[in-house]
């Protein structure tokens, strides 16, 4: 590829990009990484189910961002109680309205923001905690390792929903508490993975070299060991997302999620329960939404795992 400015611009064609990414002799670490990422993407894209999962997730994110563009109805407060409550799907209200004359489609669309928020907050809370505990246990070994792993096992000993329920019950209802409750039950697998990876690389020459050049334990841990754990963790996090969504929906269904009138798909299902016989739509559509998003994460997670750990095949 030409290295001067105009030459460079002219030579950026798709064929040149491919050649640059797939070269056997990369000039920089960034190039090597980009090349590997490209190969991973190609393998991932070859899997139709994984791509469907990706499309679903992208659609979810798009729905959350573009919410105001997708619907005119207010998601929090209904329209005219007399005329607009409990309308069946069709016409102006694509998916019907609920007991408080709120448009269901609109609540689903804005509910996607709640879903994304929960996923994001849980990941951002649970993953770092898991990584820190896991890498510390693996790196320091000895009684620290035993103690931390016993703690991890204790949390793993609970079925997730039950523990989340206990936390939510103690802390009270509300979105932050629900997120905390789910995060608290999500970190153990990440700690395990991080510890396993740490044990593998702890004794490599590469780490010894870093230590000998004066890097303190903390620096080695953060700078070298933690980044190595990322690939397996990313796969695990994606696969766990579906479970997080279902747990969050479960908590919402039991009334322990967001406070009304905020839309949340799980609590919407619960809202519709009493009306189920005659106004089935209030309950049905939010459930379908939960299902599709959960399916999307499962498909994408499976696809990621096939790419990053092909021996599963």
């Amino acid at each position, binding site marked *: 590829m030409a290295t001067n400015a105009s030459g460079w611009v002219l030579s950026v064609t798709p064929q040149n990009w491919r050649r640059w990414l797939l070269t056997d002799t990369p000039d920089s670490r960034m190039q090597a990484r980009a090349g590997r990422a490209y190969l991973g993407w190609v393998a991932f894209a070859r899997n139709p189910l994984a791509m469907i999962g990706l499309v679903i997730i992208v659609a979810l994110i798009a729905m959350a961002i573009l919410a105001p563009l997708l619907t005119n109805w207010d998601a929090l407060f209904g329209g005219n109680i007399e005329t607009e409550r409990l309308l069946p799907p069709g016409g102006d209200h694509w998916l019907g309205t609920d007991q408080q004359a709120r448009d269901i489609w609109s609540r689903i669309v804005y509910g996607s923001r709640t879903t994304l928020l929960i996923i994001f907050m849980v990941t951002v809370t649970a993953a770092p905690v898991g990584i820190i505990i896991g890498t510390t246990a693996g790196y320091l070994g000895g009684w620290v390792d035993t103690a931390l792993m*016993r*703690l991890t*096992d*204790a*949390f793993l*000993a*609970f*079925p*997730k*929903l*039950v*523990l989340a*329920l*206990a*936390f*939510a*019950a*103690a*802390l009270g209802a509300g979105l932050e508490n629900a997120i905390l409750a789910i995060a608290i039950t999500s970190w153990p697998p990440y700690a395990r993975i991080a510890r396993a990876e740490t044990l593998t690389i702890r004794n490599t020459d590469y780490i010894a070299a870093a230590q000998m050049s004066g890097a303190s334990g903390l620096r080695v841990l953060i700078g070298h060991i933690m980044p190595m754990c990322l690939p397996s963790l990313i796969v695990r996090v994606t696969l766990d997302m*579906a479970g997080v969504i*279902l747990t969050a*929906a*479960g908590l919402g*269904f*039991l*009334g*322990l999620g967001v406070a009304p009138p905020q839309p949340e798909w*799980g609590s919407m*299902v619960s809202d519709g*329960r009493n009306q*189920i*016989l005659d106004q*089935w739509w209030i*309950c*049905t559509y*939010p*459930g379908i939404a*939960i*299902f599709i998003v*959960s*399916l999307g994460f*499962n*498909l994408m997670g*499976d696809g990621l795992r096939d790419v990053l750990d092909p021996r*599963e095949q």
Partner: protein
Amino acid sequence: MSLSALKSVGKVLLSIATTMLGLLVVTFIISRLLPADPVLAIVGDHASESTIAAARTKLGLDHPIPVQFLLYIWNVLQGDLGMSLRTSQPIMTDLANVFPATLELATWGILIGVVIGIPLGVWAAVRKDTIVDHLIRFVGLVGYSMPIFWLGIMGLLIFYAKLDWLPGPGRLDFGYEDIVTPVTGIMTIDTLIAGETDLFWNALAHLILPASLLGYYSLAYISRMTRSLMLSQLRQEYVLTARVKGVPESRIIWKHAMGNVLVPLLTVVALSYGNLLEGSVLTETVFAWHGIGLYITDSIFGQDLPAVMGGTIVVGFVYIIINTLTDLAYRFLDPRAR
């Protein structure tokens, strides 16, 4: 029993004890340290001064936290989980009453999961990459992407409300629950003991929908794991040896490969059973099934924190026991581990 066997059992008991300890640390933190006022959480808002004072002493709230924790453990070991604010009964008694219902449901669920899930998994493995395989994997995928409470509601809507093929929520038709005296707590058994054959069939009919729901949940997981385990075994050298010997394919699958699959599969089934305990919380709510799950959720709404914690401890305990027993069975059944 030989010395080494005794040592194994000892190690297992130790591991149960330490994990239980960890569990109790967590529940202790939740029940004492999280709420604003732990005493009020235990005795309720309407308690009298004397009750509150008595509770303070009993819980040892005047003592430092480690002592409180020891007291806590001591109480739990004696089976004293406190009093329920809702039912005014000892929580342990409440739990003993409702636990069999959950057991009944979860057991039927796992039976369905195993009886259908294992053959499906084997079939998918043997017909890898064909349409049968993709179909079975898809059905499984749908199973663990589905919100179980929603599926339950849909099930009731379709089979009970619209089609009238199956009875509605509850373990028996409305009003009949009091006719049967609880002996084991398991409705199908108790109705037979009481000689009420009509009610027996009724109980069975009521089981169908919720048990199938849990069954679907567990077969999704079991079939996936069976498929994966079976595929991994079919790649092994001893399978080639058997083929060279001319052993028929069905025997290779069901005797040779399955023999190696059974032990890890046991762990899978146990794990699934544990998951069903979790799934039962939501299922029982949908089907008004008076088991531990419904008890816990009712307690949450009744602001009955001690009951919630009691239920959590028992569920956690059962989960630990299941996992440990599987560990033991593993060591017992695999000839290489003896």
